[in-house]
């Protein structure tokens, strides 16, 4: 189920709860209202019963028949209001109670009649009246009390019911939102980790079950972005490689000139002095020609090998191998540019797990930059070294060229950052950075304007 649906569902459940509580509370309140009305009525009745009894006392004191008459009137009024109440609020008060009350009232009325008809001083009838009056009032009093208590009970029970329901709704809302946000946060954390690693140049993916909701779509989108970026990076690496070949061929072309010249001079002499040759020196010269063609073949093969697009191919390797290959490719460019090269390669250096071709390309990029930073020539120092305590192998490239201004340093690894105008695409270092990152390595730079620049590459030592 989608997260949106889950949230809607949980909200709907809560709304239903709240509506139910509301309805219940409403019903309770209206019941309470009628009960309160009844309590009011019975309060009134109580009051009039009290007055009846006062008149009753008056009669006993002064034997004024008027008092009895008053009582009768009051009884009539009370009967009316009881009948009225029976119609209005019978559902709130038990019918039985009301009719009992009505009966007591009737008996009382009967007793009043008896007294008024009997001769004065009929103590029997008078006693009867008194007893009935007391019963009526007691009954009405207790009934009122009971109803009042009932109303109180209802109020407190609906109060606690409201509290319980309130807590239930609150708890489910909190639990549901906690569950959902937990779930969202967990996936978002995965996505965050991935995007961070992507921004560092590691084009990984989120693996494992992908949920079938919005987060799932997000994860799928980020995954395919990562895939696309990695493909683009490969394309970029290849593009930069082809671009470096432009620089390399200038050097390599010169390198080809010498063996070509050698072959040419031998053949010119062959043609010119053919008759002077004996078999022995003819064979010697043909061997020379063969040697020179092999020299050419090697140079061309080196370049072709470098330029060919290659699948990333990580192998256990000696770091010095790609370094030497890169130096070979750059040999002539260095020569022509008046760069004095010093190489110091570590012996028996621990192996690394690398793509030779890519590391070679990184070195070509760094060496090209170094040469370009020394327009009138200079000194270049290339070193490999193992650092056993850190578990790394380091390649260091030091030039004593122009150096990099401090304000440029944060940007030199950015794609397309270049200070070389049309001469540079600004891809060399960014591509190198990507390659080294993919090897779980680091590339650092130190530079001082006017003094030179040092690039250091760190690669982890390979452990079986």
């Amino acid at each position, binding site marked *: 189920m989608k997260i949106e649906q889950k949230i809607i569902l949980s909200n709907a459940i809560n709304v239903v709860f709240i509506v139910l509580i509301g309805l219940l509370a409403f019903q309770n309140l209206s019941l309470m209202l009628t009960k309160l009305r009844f309590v009011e009525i019975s309060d009134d009745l109580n009051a009039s019963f009290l007055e009846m009894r006062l008149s009753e006392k008056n009669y006993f004191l002064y034997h004024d028949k008027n008092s009895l008459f008053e009582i009768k009137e009051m009884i009539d009024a009370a009967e009316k209001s009881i009948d009225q109440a029976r119609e209005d609020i019978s559902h709130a008060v038990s019918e039985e109670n009301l009719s009992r009350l009505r009966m007591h009232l009737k008996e009382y009325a009967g007793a009043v009649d008896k007294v008024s008809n009997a001769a004065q001083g009929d103590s029997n009838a008078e006693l009867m009246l008194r007893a009935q009056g007391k019963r009526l009032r007691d009954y009405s009093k207790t009934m009122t009390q009971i109803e009042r208590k009932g109303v109180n009970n209802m109020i407190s029970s609906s109060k606690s019911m409201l509290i319980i329901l309130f807590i239930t709704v609150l708890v489910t809302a909190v639990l549901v939102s906690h569950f959902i946000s937990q779930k969202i946060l967990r996936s978002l954390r995965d996505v965050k980790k991935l995007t961070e690693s992507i921004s560092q140049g590691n084009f990984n993916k989120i693996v494992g079950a992908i949920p079938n909701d919005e987060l799932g779509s997000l994860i799928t989108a980020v995954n395919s972005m990562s895939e696309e970026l990695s493909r683009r990076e490969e394309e970029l690496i290849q593009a930069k490689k082809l671009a470096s070949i432009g620089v390399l061929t200038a050097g390599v072309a*010169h390198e080809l*000139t*010498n063996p*070509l*010249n*050698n*072959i*040419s*001079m*031998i053949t*010119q*002499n062959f043609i*010119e*002095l053919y008759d*002077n040759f004996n078999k022995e020196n003819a064979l010697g010269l043909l061997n*020379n020609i063969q040697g*020179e063609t092999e020299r050419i073949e090697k140079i061309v093969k080196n370049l072709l090998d470098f330029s060919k697009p290659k699948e990333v191919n990580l192998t256990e390797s000696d770091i010095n191998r790609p370094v030497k290959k890169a130096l070979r490719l750059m040999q002539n460019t260095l*020569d*022509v540019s008046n760069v004095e090269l010093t190489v110091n390669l570590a012996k028996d250096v621990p192996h690394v797990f690398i793509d030779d071709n890519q590391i070679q390309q990184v070195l070509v990029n760094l060496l090209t930059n170094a040469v370009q930073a020394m327009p009138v020539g200079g000194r270049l120092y290339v070193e490999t070294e193992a650092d056993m305590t850190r578990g790394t192998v380091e390649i260091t490239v030091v030039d004593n060229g122009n150096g990099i201004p401090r304000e440029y340093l944060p940007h030199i690894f950015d794609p397309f950052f270049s200070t070389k105008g049309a001469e540079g695409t600004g891809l060399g270092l960014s591509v190198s950075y990507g390659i080294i990152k993919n090897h779980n390595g680091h590339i650092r730079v130190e530079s001082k304007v006017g003094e030179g620049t040092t690039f250091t590459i760190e690669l982890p030592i390979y452990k079986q």
Partner: protein
Amino acid sequence: MSRIMVIDDEKIVGDMSRMSLEQEGYEVETFLNAEPALARLKEEQFDIVITDYKMKGMDGMEVLRTIKTMYPEIKVIMITAFANLDTAIEALRGDVHDFFPKPVKIKELKASIKRALQKE
């Protein structure tokens, strides 16, 4: 008999130059680098020095300058694999007799040598 010195770190260049030039009746000595060649100039007189432009250690331009200061009568012919306008101009300023990009046409080289010797 005219004496010619060839300096080039490519051994074949020296060998082939000698083979061809000896046929013309010149006396030829070859060197793989500049320092021993210059030392040899102190001992023997040469009419022409053919030198490569780009060599390990002392390069062709330095050879040209040294010869022009110490033995101005020697003619210098420069050959180079890195032919471009800058190197040519630099060489001409240094009073080079002739300038050949590799691959060298031996016939042209021989003609140039002949001209150099005739001027004397």
